[in-house]
């Protein structure tokens, strides 16, 4: 099996500061981290490789510009994935997320998938900052490969995969002919924590760095991002517990919710 794993450099939304009064979102200042569910895809690639052999390559298209900080964070994310057991990586930097939509990203990534002659593409079902899940579907469409989303388990059976996937009301088991693109959920596995030796060795694994080359026009434009105005009262009720709970029940009655 020759696997391509797509890793997103995601804004760490937990650390992202926003100011509702001025609608300012401090994107530049926020740190990035590897998409959490993408790490499940990394783990799954390593497990598949351990079972059936082959090679697994990380592909990262960074869409948060090319500042030193962003590059450093991206290289750290790549190193972590290599330490988990991927063989090598392709890192494409310099794209600006406001100009590069999933249409363009899929074109760029699919080209790399063809270049490394992968026959399986794995990705997370979404990443914390945007959670659209659109990219793997578009990569599949660009390659002309079948696509199955929301995988909770993947078994290799010759030139097919048996994929269990989780929908709202159903769990489905499907047989997919390779080559294919699969997006995984967080339930599929628990990403391993690399040991020190593996981290040291990861530093020596090949990482091909390429500058993003704008050949395609985006289909989608982000006109603005505003801070949602969720009006919450934020009243912390004080006093001894009895009193506090009485006040709470009174307030909930006045709100008409109990």
């Amino acid at each position, binding site marked *: 099996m020759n696997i391509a794993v797509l890793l997103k450099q995601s*804004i760490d*939304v*937990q650390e*992202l500061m*926003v100011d509702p009064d001025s609608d300012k*979102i401090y994107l530049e200042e926020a740190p990035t981290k590897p998409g959490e*569910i993408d790490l499940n895809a990394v783990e799954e690639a390593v497990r598949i490789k351990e079972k059936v052999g082959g090679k697994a390559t990380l592909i990262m298209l960074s869409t948060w510009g090319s500042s030193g900080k962003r590059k450093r964070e991206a290289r750290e994310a790549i190193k972590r994935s290599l330490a988990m057991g991927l063989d090598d990586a392709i890192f494409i930097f310099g794209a600006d997320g406001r100009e590069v*939509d*999933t*249409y363009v990203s*899929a074109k760029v990534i699919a080209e790399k998938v063809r270049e490394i002659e992968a026959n399986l593409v794995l990705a997370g079902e979404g990443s*914390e*900052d*945007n*959670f*659209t*899940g*659109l990219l793997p*579907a*578009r990569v*599949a*469409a660009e390659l002309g490969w079948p*696509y*199955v989303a*929301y995988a909770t388990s993947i078994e290799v059976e010759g030139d097919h995969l048996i994929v269990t996937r*989780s*929908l*709202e*009301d*159903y*769990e*489905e*088991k*499907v*047989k997919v*002919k390779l080559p*294919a693109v699969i997006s995984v959920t*967080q339930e599929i596995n628990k990403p391993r924590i690399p040991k020190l030796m593996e981290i040291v060795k990861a530093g020596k694994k090949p990482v091909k760095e390429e500058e993003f080359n704008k050949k395609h026009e985006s*289909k*989608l*434009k*982000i*006109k603005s*991002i505003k*801070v*949602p105005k969720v009006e*919450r*009262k*934020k*009243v*912390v009720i004080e006093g001894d*517990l*009895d009193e*506090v*709970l009485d006040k709470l*029940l009174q307030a*909930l009655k006045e*709100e008409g*919710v*109990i």
Partner: protein
Amino acid sequence: MRVVIYSDVLDLAKELIGLANELNAETELILAGMEPDNVVGVDRITLYRGISPEDQELVLEALKQAEADLYLLSNDRRGRELVGLLAHSKGGASIVDATSVKVEGDRVIAERMTLGGKGVAVEEAKMPAVISVMAGKYKPPEEGKSPEIIEKEAPSIERRVELVDKKEKPKVGVPLDKADVVIAVGRGFKKKEDLKMAYELAEILGGVVGATRPLAADLKWMPEEVWIGISGVRIRPKLLIVIGASGQQQFSAGIMDSKVVVAINNDEKAPIFEVSDYGIVADLYEAVPKLIEKLKR
């Protein structure tokens, strides 16, 4: 302008018809393996009785064959899975999680939540575009034109995905996203048995119990179906009581549409208090039993 609508859930398709009517579009509804019960407000229904909704490849092919400026899909998992596939094959834009959709000339403009709930993005694209719209944002029309119904055979294509097995997930009572009262439990509970307090509280208030990600995914104390958050279920109850959950961003984004939020947490600095109407700084092991006792009186 032409709109094509598809969903594997008829009620969601009807909401999309409500949206299409607001856009004054010529509308076609595509249905796979289901009957058009009480559907009004569309010009045409194309029925594929030979395609079942789980057959993603055939549904996609049927949608590819339909010509439209705008494709509206439901935002459930099957719908979302199709958005990128269809958009890419049409060479168009794609938007998921849309909360509102407008058309201006040859462009479509949609709003969606982004950055883990910390931002609302306004996205614009030249049509064709494929958009999946969040449930509950548009009302199904009660009256309108009666559609012409056309039946079509399933398209014939090379098959690469085959359904081997399909199991219904165990039902957890009232679905979380439809409940009026939700009790959300988090890591503050020390052991699984202690959750019975939350269930008791839910029973008294006529609600259901949901959980944060660690409880559902890591500790497996509760089924995945009751995991509240941006990658789980997004809820919109009248009353939400959050017990022992700190308020991680991915959880908080999933509760934004709740009417009244109450938080019980022993850490006064927990971010959950920032997104709550009423906060109680207390040990849940003292506060919850006492609250139950008071409600019983």
